[in-house]
């Protein structure tokens, strides 16, 4: 029979070897790909959060790594709070948590549940600006404006805390907010103006 030659020992080994390789290689390649992917793009750990921001309740899903600042800017379209250094050194991300000033870049969103969060967007009363916002405009409290939302949130807290006794006291209690334009004199004047009201 003609077919006899096709079932040689060599032929059998070649075909079965190839089949075995096809079965094992894809799984090892896949595992390797998963390992590499896991290293460069680690698996997210998403959880459900309920946060009260500017007197409105938000229920959303976020990775455990999400800071309040990233949550505001990337999920809630609240881009008023600014990312300056992202390491708690510049104060551009200052917000109020339960009425006290805090840094949103160092606050994990998962830890802010059950607290009342206020951002610069929640400061005005409808279209009526907060007195501190008005004072910053009137006293030239900014130039480029990038640090301004953080400065204003900090300034409002500074007045509420009663640390406005002297220029030195205001400067000390505003030292967590840096301004590279150097609008500090206008900022101090704005605070004095609101404190006197």
């Amino acid at each position, binding site marked *: 029979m003609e077919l006899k030659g096709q079932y040689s020992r060599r032929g059998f080994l070649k075909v079965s070897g190839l089949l075995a390789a096809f079965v094992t290689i894809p799984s090892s390649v896949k595992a390797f790909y998963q390992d590499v992917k896991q290293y460069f793009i*680690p698996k997210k*750990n998403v959880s459900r959060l309920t946060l009260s921001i500017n007197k409105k309740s938000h229920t959303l899903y976020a990775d455990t790594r999400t800071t309040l600042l990233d949550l505001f800017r990337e999920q809630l379209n609240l881009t008023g709070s600014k990312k300056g250094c992202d390491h*708690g050194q510049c*104060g551009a991300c200052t917000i109020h948590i339960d009425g006290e000033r805090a*840094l949103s870049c160092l606050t994990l969103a998962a*830890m802010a549940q059950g607290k009342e969060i206020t951002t610069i967007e929640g400061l005005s009363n409808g279209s009526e600006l907060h007195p501190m916002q008005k004072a910053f405009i009137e006293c030239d409290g900014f130039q480029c404006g990038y640090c301004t939302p953080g400065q204003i949130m900090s300034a409002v807290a500074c007045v509420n805390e009663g640390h406005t006794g002297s220029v030195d006291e205001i400067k000390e209690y505003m030292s*967590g907010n840096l301004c590279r334009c150097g609008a500090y004199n206008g900022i101090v004047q704005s605070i004095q103006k609101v404190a006197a009201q």
Partner: protein
Amino acid sequence: MRPFNFEKANSVAEASAMKSVNKQFIAGGTNLVDLMKKNIAQPETLIDVHLALTNSIDYQNNVLIIGAVASNTKVAVDKEVIEKFPLISKAILAGASPQIRNMASSAGNLLQRTRCPYFYDITTPCNKRIPNSGCSAVDGNNRMSAIAGYNEQCVAVHPSDFCVALAALDATVTAVTKEQKEITIPFKDFHKLPENTPWLDNNLPQDAVITKIEIPNNSFSKHSTYVKLRDRSSYAFALISVAAALDLNGKRIKEARLASGGVAHKPWRWFEVEKFLEGKRVAEDVFEEAAKLATKDLKPLSENGYKIPMLQGAIVTALKNCINQ
């Protein structure tokens, strides 16, 4: 930042049971979140301890009891603290910014890591970050490094101001161990020197949870001060700081307490100088002699020789400020 699980502990027992090497406690997060962003800390799980620990501040039986998660601001503005332990309030207000003080917890302040630039630069060797990788600061940029108690393995300084005041006032730290045993550590033994384990900052047993900080009553409230010298007038870590507290008997010093930040791997008590000051006159020449005694055996590194005269000046100023209150 590496991904992590987020858990909450509801009690001290639960917190210490949950804790392990790869699981870290988080309270204020002002230091830990920053370190995680830079991949210096890479915990697999964070355990929020706000529900497990108290933020209360009580004054009972002549002892001030500060709850582990009381914020730095809460401690600094507490009526009892300002009246009986003003040094604590002054030291806290000399550190960080109002935003950070609102967030940072008391126990977290004790556990904060050094601000040595090489600890933060993951491209350089650092024994504190990677054990046995070497110290970059000992022959590198060390203008902010230690002038006492250091070795070839680590020249980092402890960054806290609050801890300098706690060291001066003989505070104690209470913690619950993994075996659910309550332990109390005197503050002078809480932080450690680098020795052969510079990656460890303190002697707190592994996986123990700090529950409170206690300060015994003292007679220093009328004469205590905190002097902090830094690169800018506010919101910077100390190059040199001095906490001084005196108990006076007319024109004589009955008892003295003196501690410094920016000097060593731990808040540095000047025990020998304290002993020298006891019974001495209240006079500037005595203070100057005390400052010289403090600095006589100090060996600065290549770039921080300036800290010696700076420390002398800070000690004299602090002692003078104690009197002129």
